[in-house]
């Protein structure tokens, strides 16, 4: 066996470890509001998140994988397969180390940011500062600010709409039922659109924008009315909180939607560098654009699912006991905002963190006065770690790169 194969094996291990961490830590983002609002149980959350993360990773995930790899760091550094191999491995190791450290020290870092920082560190070591595409990096940094703000605005508007159109009404339950197709349809619309525009499967259908919009609209309408029928069938109208019950059913759907978006978005963090190593080892070169094989996405997805399965329980239990003030209407607004933001951002090719989208969603509902008490200032703390993560992962990656160069 050549050293390349050892590197590939190490790559697999650490790629899997990164995926595992994403599953263990970030599952809270997709399932927290649903579990907190008691729409689903912990077991259900673990199950749903596990399966849908795999599905999202495999069917929607490929787009972002490319962007992280070739967007911020120039492809010039990949010209030398030797350097590229060490670089990809050190980036992966650095990100994994930083995430482990963060977990150990209980720091709120994002796996997305860790990998971006690590890639930058490798880029600087391999080609100096000139290989960094600063404009692209600035766009990514901007997206970290834009995504929570965007999510905040969506959830704010969504919650205000729910209050104005449903909660305030004398017969809130009837209003909720009457409008449920709209809310379900909206969620379905975004899912279908992102599916049609982004996935390999959707692309083979090769629809133009207007056809796609029309198809999404029709499917959204159908799903919306089907959802209403299901909700009517399974919800009693005479309960005190029957309005919340309606949204509880919808929330089961939206939390699936977030898990799907999360799988699609986050799988790239784990297998992006792994894909580079894989191609270098197998073909000897790596081009500007490398299709990520489906089974590699599946590998990442399964890694995430393992993380969820093994550590998800503990996280969920914390959520269930700590978040008691979140009701289903709020949870729906948060979920919807977070998932829409993540899907939209990953459509634009920006490595957005689901953490930020979820945080923005909660703050939006909080600003709308929907939650009994939410700490706005935590955002500043979180921001500090966003800023810290990138250089920390970059420096780790640089050191590892030097060390690995000594050996290989």
């Amino acid at each position, binding site marked *: 066996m050549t050293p390349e194969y050892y590197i590939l094996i190490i790559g697999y291990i650490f790629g899997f470890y990164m995926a595992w961490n994403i599953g263990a830590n970030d599952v*809270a983002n997709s399932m927290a509001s649903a579990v907190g609002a008691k729409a689903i149980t912990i077991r259900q959350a673990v199950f749903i998140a596990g399966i849908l993360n795999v599905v999202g990773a495999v069917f929607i995930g490929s787009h972002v994988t490319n962007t992280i790899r070739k967007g911020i760091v120039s492809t010039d550094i990949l010209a030398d397969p030797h350097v590229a191999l060490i670089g990809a491995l050190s980036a992966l190791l650095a990100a994994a180390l930083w995430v482990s450290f963060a977990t150990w020290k209980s720091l709120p870092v994002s796996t997305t940011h860790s990998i971006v920082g690590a890639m930058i560190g490798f880029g600087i070591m391999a080609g100096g500062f000139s290989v960094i595409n600063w404009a692209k990096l600035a766009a990514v940094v901007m997206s970290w600010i834009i995504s929570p703000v965007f999510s905040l605005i969506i959830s704010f508007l969504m919650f205000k709409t729910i209050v104005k159109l449903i909660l305030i009404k004398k017969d809130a339950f009837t209003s909720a039922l009457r409008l449920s197709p709209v809310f379900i349809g909206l969620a379905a619309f975004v899912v279908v659109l992102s599916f049609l525009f982004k996935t390999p499967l959707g692309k083979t259908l090769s629809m133009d924008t207007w056809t796609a919009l029309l198809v999404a609209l029709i499917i959204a309408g159908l799903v919306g009315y089907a959802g209403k029928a299901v909700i009517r069938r399974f919800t009693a109208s005479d309960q005190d909180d029957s309005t919340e019950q309606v949204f509880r059913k919808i929330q089961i759907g939206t939390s699936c939607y977030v898990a799907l978006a999360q799988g699609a978005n986050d799988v790239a963090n784990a297998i992006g560098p792994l894909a580079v190593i894989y191609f270098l080892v197998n073909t000897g070169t790596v081009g500007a654009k490398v299709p990520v094989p489906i089974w590699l996405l599946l590998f990442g997805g399964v890694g995430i699912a393992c993380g969820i399965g093994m550590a998800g329980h503990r996280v969920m239990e914390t959520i269930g006991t700590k978040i*008691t003030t979140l009701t289903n209407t709020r949870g729906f607004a948060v979920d919807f905002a977070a998932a829409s933001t993540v899907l939209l951002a990953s459509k634009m090719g920006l490595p957005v963190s689901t953490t930020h989208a979820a945080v923005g969603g909660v703050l939006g509902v909080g600003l709308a006065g929907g939650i009994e008490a*939410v700490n706005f200032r935590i955002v500043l703390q979180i921001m500090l770690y966003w800023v810290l993560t990138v250089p920390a992962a970059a420096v780790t990656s640089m050191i590892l790169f030097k060390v690995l160069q000594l050996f290989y």
Partner: protein
Amino acid sequence: MRIPFISMFMTSPFEGLLEHAEKIKECTWAFQQAIECHITDQCESFEEFRKNVDNFESQADAIKRRIRGHLPKGTLMPVDKFELFRYLHEQDKVLDAVEEALDWISFRSEPGIPTALHKDFFLLVDAVLDPVEEMCRMVAEARKYFTNFSEKQRRLVKDIIHTLRQQEHEADKVEDGIKAKVMNMQIDPVTVFHMIRLAETIGSIADHSENAGDMMRAMLAR
């Protein structure tokens, strides 16, 4: 801390508010027992009841401090933070009035309340207990309103506030009756002063409950 999503959620101040209101309710029951004990004359445990009330008061105080201490800058709530504090302040004054009334009695435990006034004071105590219980209900219902924002619920809370006003008015009438009666009794001036001030202090329990209702009305405003 690892999961920012969780660390955003804080303990709800409404939980504390409700807890505080219930402590007051319990406290007023002890207060009623203390007054009854003092009036009926056959009981020697007035001091014990008074200690009991003091105990409740310090527990409620701890809750109040906890609420105030756990709302840092940047806390998002359905209501304005200072409105909430003003409300809490007023709710706390109910408790202070209860304590003060018992203190006032203890300053001159002999000869006690004149027999002719026994019935009136029983009535007054009953009259001021109603608004306290109503206030407790108001907090619970208001909390529900801030969760479901339903117009029906808002109306319910407003109705409770309205009831509070009426109950305060009733208590006022009883209080005025006592004062008029005391002024026209041919007794020593110290007892007159003691009784007048006692009636006023007990009456202020209802006043503060009503004020709390008004503060709640401000929080309900859209």
